């Protein structure tokens, strides 16, 4: 998906730049005088007619770029509480702490772990007992 989106973006940029290039060549390319527009004063008259293919190419490139930008944007995050909470409970990668305050899984897990009341002696004894008893013999499901 990312590759396709990048390709579309590149194509869009190419076409846009090509259209701009062609537009810049218009005054040098045209030799005959175009018909004068009666509504415009002489100083504002562009003295060229814009060919249809440049217009079409510009519009096409804009469409390509819009499609590419939309396809290459990041996934939308859940805005419903239950969906967000469900991903925290069900998926492992939502539990990783990416920065301080970002990620980290269920924020209410702190109410069940209660770091302010941590029983260091009891937990330490249990951990050392577990380590002495051989530690992790076979891997468990979740860290």
């Amino acid at each position, binding site marked *: 998906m990312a590759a396709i989106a990048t390709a579309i973006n590149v194509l869009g940029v190419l076409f846009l730049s090509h259209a701009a290039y062609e537009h810049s060549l218009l005054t040098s390319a045209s030799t005959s005088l175009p018909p004068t527009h009666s509504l415009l004063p002489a100083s504002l008259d562009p003295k060229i007619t814009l060919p249809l293919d440049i217009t079409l190419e510009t519009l096409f490139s804009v469409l390509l770029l819009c499609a590419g930008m939309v396809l290459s944007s990041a996934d939308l995050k859940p805005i419903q509480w*239950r969906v967000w*909470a469900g991903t925290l409970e069900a998926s492992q990668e*939502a539990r990783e702490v990416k920065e301080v305050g970002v990620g980290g899984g269920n924020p209410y897990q702190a109410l069940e772990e209660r770091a302010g009341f941590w029983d260091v002696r009891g937990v330490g004894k249990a951990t050392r007992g577990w380590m002495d008893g051989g530690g992790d013999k076979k891997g468990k499901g979740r860290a």
Partner: protein
Amino acid sequence: MVHLILFRFRVGIGGGGGDAVVGPARRSFEVPASLSINLRTHDQEHHECDSETHQPSQPAKMPALYLTAPISADPRLALSLAAQAPTFTTSQASSWWSSLPYPLTLFLNSESQEKWTSYENLFLACLRTGDFTTAYTCLEALIARFGKTNDHILALQGLYQEATAQNTGQLEEVMKAYDEVLREDPTIFSVRKRRAALLRSVGKAAEAIADLTVLVDASPTDAEAWAELADLCLGQGSLEQAVYCLEEVLLVMPNAWNMHARLGEVVYMSAQKMEGGDQMKALAESMRRFCRSIELCDGYLRGFYGLRVTTGTLLEALQGAKKGQPTTSDPLAGDLAPPSVATVMKLNELATAKLAEIVRRGTAGEKGWDGYSEVELKAAKDLIDRDTQKIER
């Protein structure tokens, strides 16, 4: 989600708030000598650490592994953190540029939140695995940065003293130190919490409950303290008080789906001791709590498990009640009428179906379903199998 992040810090770091203020002590009292680290005979080992070669401090990004606190039941995170702690501390230790005058050190320090969170988590991991030397080094770094009289650092010092205490005499000293600190300034909630935790760990549950009651009286919005009080009351067997405390937790944090499930579990436990109409009411309330937890969290295994169990029991009770006893519901008191049999049966089927789906997908390890632990999945599977056996008979 910003308010949740604030709650996380407030709840996790202990009432007083994680203040990262550097500078002179804000209080005029002296930290009691017994709570300061100097009395312990770790100075010699500390000098050994100093003489090792130090690498220059790296302002590099800390591994995300260091940012999770190692206080859950699973010891493997603590083990891996404690294994990496010595290299971390030596790499962070001060080098030639910390002896430069003040303005220049500002350009050369590697200050970040991750750094201090990492120090604290490594400290906790070392205490857990028994590596007190490295724990002392980490604690010293934290004291050097935040000062000895910082609320949170006082709690960490107390934690260190508790962990390294070898007999009840030393624990008594730690208790006395806490009391001294609280006498000077009774508002240090982190030390209050440590005091209650110490009372609980030596077995004085009733005193711990009294201490926590004072704490929640002073700070009724501290959900962590209410949750600890609920746990203590549950341990003592006073289920009604546990239910009250958990309801207070939910008042402060109404969207905590795991606390709704916890309250459902505790109410179910109390329902098993009741009879008749009261039991029906309690079972219905427990079922509603689990329903609420599922509303708040899609695919919540614990919620569906509880829903299955409570609807099963409620169906039996309702079928028993059909034969005679009228169930009382007092509209003035705001009680809800007990749910109808059809509703309960539908919920039962829903819970069974969802449990089966979660077990199937979780054991297959599909992407987005791998967060359930094996123990949970096995328990859910056993529950489903047990009931299918009953039907087969």
